[in-house]
């Protein structure tokens, strides 16, 4: 049985990150995009926790908890904006959300 080293964690986290980045870049539905951002954040969390374990202290874990809270706040704010937006435009397609370019 191969022991689970930090490298393993990093590989999983990198995979998660790449999945999330692909999701953010390719999906049109804002809800999916927000979920993909969660994936990226969780990939980072996993890294922090992995390095925390490697170094044998709790700094990284505390960071991770902060990030989880931050993610919750971000999801709340993001979904709130999305619902307000949907009421006006009746769409959640990210390609059509382009008013700010002007």
């Amino acid at each position, binding site marked *: 049985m191969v022991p689970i080293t930090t490298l393993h964690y990093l590989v999983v986290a990198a995979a998660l990150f790449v999945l999330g*980045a692909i999701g*953010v*870049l*390719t999906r049109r539905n804002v809800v999916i*995009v927000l979920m993909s951002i969660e994936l990226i954040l969780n990939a980072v969390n996993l890294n922090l926790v992995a390095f925390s374990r490697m170094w044998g202290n709790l700094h990284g874990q505390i960071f991770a908890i902060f990030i989880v809270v931050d993610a919750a706040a971000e999801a709340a704010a993001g979904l709130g904006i999305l619902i307000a937006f949907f009421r006006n435009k009746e769409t959640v397609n*990210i*390609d059509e*959300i*382009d*008013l*700010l*370019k002007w």
Partner: protein
Amino acid sequence: MFLNHIYLIPLFPAFGAVIMFFFGRRLQKATVNAVCVGAVVVAFLFACFTVVEYTHFAHGTGHPFEKILYTWLGSGDGHLNFVKRDGTTASFNADAGFLLDPLSSIWLLFVTGVGMLIHIYSTGYMAHEGGYYRFFGYLNLFMFAMLTLILANNYMMLFVGWEGVGLCSYLLIGFYFHRNSASTAANKAFIVNRIGDAGFILGALTLAWYLGSFRFTDINVQARGGHFAIGDPVLTAAALLLFIGACGKSAQIPLYIWLPDAMEGPTPVSALIHAATMVTAGVYMVARSNAVFVLAPTAMKTVAIVGALTAVFAASIGLVQNDIKRVLAYSTVSQLGYMFLALGVGAFAAGVFHVFTHAFFKALLFLGSGSVIHAMSGEQDMRNMGDLRRRIPTTHWTMLVATLAIAGIFPFAGFFSKDEILWQTWASEGGAYRILWFVGYGTALMTAFYMFRLMYLTFYSPSRMSHEAEHHVHESPKSMTVPLVILALCSIGAGWLSWPHSLGGSAHFEKFLEPVFAREAVVLVEEGKSAQLAAGEKEAEHTDKTEYALMFLSLAAAGVGWGMARHSYARAAKGYKEPIAVDAPPLYKLLYNKWFVDEGYDYVFTGRRKVGKVRLGVMGAGEASSWFDAKVIDGAVNDVGWVTKAIATISTWWDKWIIDGVGVNGPAILARMISYPARLFEWGLVQWYALVMVAGLLGFGVYYVWK
């Protein structure tokens, strides 16, 4: 006391008219009678007392009485001044003023008197008609206007009355407004009169400009002052313009055409307005302006010639008409022609005297014809009458009196007045007018013929009535026959007022009028061309043998006319032939169609005739010049406009494409083109931004790993 309140005379009927206007619809017929007929009766009595008082006032001098109520038009304060021909300034002044002199006294008496009788007659004649109060309101309004006309002391006031009677004439001709012919006839009368009115107002303004006043007394003083040569061109023009007005109102050639059509109105209207009173307004106005006319011999000649021509022309048409009222209408035109003939040869008093007698017998003829029509249940065609003598006896004998009067049989009224006119025509201007005497004499013959033709066809010849009409024939009520009888007595006696010297009389009527015209007689004598000689010479001439000869000749003419009518129509049975139609069909056609004057006017004036699409006459000329204006003048204008427009188009193109395109929009386009690449980075797709960011991160990553 009456004289000082002379202005009340027109106001009595005006009051009646106002009452009818506001409350007439709700009033009973008896109330309408009381108000309207009462107003005219009061006006008549008031007029009688006024004239009596005036004769005391004037004391045989004929001095005019003037009552000025207030300044009606203009003022002395310089607001309405005009520059007279001599450069001085006169103020445009017309008073609400009233003038009574022998001339207006005569008109005042017969207008109110005949008017009163016709009002009474109308209560019977109109009893079964709708619009009873409307009729009497109009009649009262007419009386007001007519009295204003004859009592006015200046041309502007006279013009008010002049227009007022024209309006009432229009309203009453069109009284049966649901009948198309009536409304057309009313329009015709109004429009033709308007042509005359234009002449009248121009003439009055010319006089005011030249003599400095509208007032008759001022004008007379000026004209008689010896400042003007006989034949003064401006006075001649003014007199001719005034005569145009008289032609319109008094139905002279060429404006007589409205009067025969005016018979569309109810018969009392024809009697009052279109026979006795209104149509004599032109004669009145010319007689009133006599001081001006005598200074304009050309105008006098025109008046005489037009009068004589109208007399014979209208009489010739009257010979063959079948409508009883139309015969009388042409007779009226013809008699008015006599009056103007008299005025034109300088025999003003004779003309006025004929107006006076004519008022009675012509009113009587019209009222009698109304009574006939009433008896015949509305039939006006003499071809369907006959043998009415015994069925409507009062109407018959009163009309017989009137016929004898108009035909000039001694001693009925018409004999004296007509004979005086013919004699004066013969004698005046040293015989220069003798040709007109022949015209007048021929007219007298025709008058006798057509009047007795009317009598025979209506009263004596065998009955040609339909059975139904025959069944209904009845004598008119007392309200109609009593005025007839009174007028018949006047038609007999009115002439005696001027029993000529040659027959042992003293010509009271002419004496009474002398002050109004006397100065003219003097002027004419000085020029050596008048029959109106100073009193002594006049009598000498009147006892001339010629006068007896002429008198006999006119009686003979009347007798011949009578005999010819009797021969032709005494036995006219159903389907009778007109002798003229048998002997000279083209002449008959010409006369029956009134010399085709209306048709001629259609060709020349009204524009109803077209050749193809081209209108004829004056209207055609108007259309032609309208075409010229639209096609040639406007065409040139449009061509110039087209050139301007073309230049403007080029200029617009230059501005749009060169100035705006190169100068203004060019830099803008350039800026936009430069901005395109920049815009690529900001095209709004969030994921694109994210991709760039990821690519950048990757780029940095790769850079640091391989460095």
